[in-house]
């Protein structure tokens, strides 16, 4: 027993385009967003492939007082710093540091915040209240001051830096995931899953979270941007990445003493920070617009 409708249907091949395809096409139309994406991808390439061209010992941290504080030239395209190190090479290497810290921080914050947000949003009532009030406590503290306090207490170093930066971001991810989960929970397909006796864990992992990807991805890109800024800030005051590892913020800090004579030492790391943060912001905004069905025209 079957209805004959589809057999008689003469419509041509169904256009098989998944949702990702639709989102990508929307994204592509936004010129600024594409610029941001291309720039960021270039940055990633530079960061990933730099060890091929640069040697850490010789190019990045080797000091050479004979060529210190040189202006930009053919040999040192952006000049050298107060220890004779090529500024351009240090900026390139610094991108590795920023990106790694950014990725790890966002990854950890997403994982922990995501779990908290999902549980909070799905179960609601007492659990939700309890978890969100804890998150509120963390949100109430200014992120930078909290990071300073943690690093100050635990001591400077990469791991402690990651801990400090992640903790500040966990509540924000928790909130975003929670509100996405709550809005999806009300949809009938979640009820349908319950109607077959699906266990909670499977409902969250299979039905709810895959539909929250959009807002979460936007948050990730925007938080990468703020993390890079945050690391630069901490390094600037000496609590972040320690010398001699190049990091844009610490490069800025070191350049303070030479601001009047060698402005290039301060300018270029600053530009690097702006480019990285701006491109990530453009990606995040572009994604947010592409994901909003109402803006599709």
């Amino acid at each position: 027993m079957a209805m004959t409708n589809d057999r008689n249907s003469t419509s041509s091949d169904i256009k098989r385009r998944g949702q990702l395809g639709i989102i990508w096409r929307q994204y592509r139309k936004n010129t600024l967003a594409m610029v941001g994406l291309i720039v960021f991808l270039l940055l990633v390439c530079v960061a990933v492939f730099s060890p091929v061209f640069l040697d850490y010992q010789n190019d990045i941290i080797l000091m050479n007082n004979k060529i210190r504080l040189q202006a930009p030239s053919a040999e040192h395209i952006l000049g050298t710093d107060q220890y004779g190190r090529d500024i351009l090479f240090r900026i390139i290497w610094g991108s590795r540091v920023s990106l790694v810290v950014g990725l790890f921080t966002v990854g950890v914050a997403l994982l922990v915040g995501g779990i908290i947000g999902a549980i909070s949003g799905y179960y609601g009532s007492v659990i939700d209240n309890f978890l969100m009030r804890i998150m509120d406590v963390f949100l109430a503290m200014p992120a930078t001051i909290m990071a300073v306090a943690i690093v100050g207490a635990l001591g400077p170093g990469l791991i402690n830096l990651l801990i400090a930066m992640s903790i500040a971001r966990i509540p924000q991810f928790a909130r975003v995931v929670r509100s996405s989960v709550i809005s999806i929970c009300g949809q009938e397909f979640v009820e349908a899953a319950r109607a077959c006796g699906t266990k909670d864990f499977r409902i969250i992992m299979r039905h709810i979270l895959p539909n929250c990807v959009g807002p979460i991805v936007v948050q990730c890109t925007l938080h990468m941007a703020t993390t890079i800024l945050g690391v630069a800030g901490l390094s600037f005051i000496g609590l972040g990445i320690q010398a001699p590892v190049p990091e844009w913020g610490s490069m800025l800090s070191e350049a303070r003493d030479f601001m009047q004579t060698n402005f290039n030492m301060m300018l270029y790391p600053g530009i690097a920070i702006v480019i990285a943060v701006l491109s990530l912001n453009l990606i995040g905004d572009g994604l947010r617009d592409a994901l909003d069905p109402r803006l599709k025209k």
Partner: protein
Amino acid sequence: MCDILIETRDLKKYFNTSRGLLHAVDGVNLTINKGNTLGVVGESGCGKSTLGRLVLRLLEPTEGKIYYDGQCISNYSRSKMDKMRTKMQIIFQDPNASLNPRMTISEIIAEPIKVCKTIRDSRERDKKVSELMDTVGLAKRFINSYPHEMDGGRRQRIGVARALALDPEFIVCDEPVSALDVSIQAQILNLLMDLQDERRLSYMFVTHDLSVVKHISDEIMVMYLGQCVERTSSDELFLNPIHPYTQALLAAIPVPDLITARNSKRINIRGEVTSPIDPKPGCRFSARCPYATEECTGEDIMLKEVSPGHWVACTRCK
């Protein structure tokens, strides 16, 4: 040998709101026989959708008992209830919201089978999915499509296929055709009726559309503000509606017939539906009823059997 599949006794669901206690479903007794369809009719706010979910225990009843094939399921534990779910399924109203946009058609239909592990072998499962798509009239080429690529009628067929995946005995149909065009409605209704004949399914068909419910129901229950005001066989309800609300409901339906439209006595009930929050005792329809008297606002009105199989809750029926 008992023929009753579903029975509820004094089923109630109250919600706590900031303004008071919302009586969504307030003391409903119903029975559904095996292979039969109970149509539950009413307008928005009457509690019919809540009732459908209560019977499946997708919402927990505040009070009252639910019986499935003689066993009381209202106090089953979560795991015991999950095992019952293979027998009781639901088809939703909104073909857009009831399908996970991230899953393909075959994944959606296979999901209940995977969860309940009724078929463990993946090839057997694929075969079953294929059979189900065939049963509901979906072409094989859609097997890897996504819901957003299909129109409302096809999406609703997927909902039907999903409900059938576990070979249930009872299906709650929550306004399954309200969101569809007229010609597609007819296709889905025919499908549901054919399936009922073939598989001896029982339905609780919830809808606001009286013309739809007449075709598919054996018995019809009219609800108003959480209570049943009239219950009888499908034919009898249309031939002889007794409760003033039922009469007004029938009279309000625009009939696609010119002579009827021009000559029919229009019973326009005045006013709007009163609030379901902390309702006063007495008949809840009395504020809008053209025949209301003092007696109607005194005590709660009980359902009385005015003729065999025809129950009405109205003071006019002595």
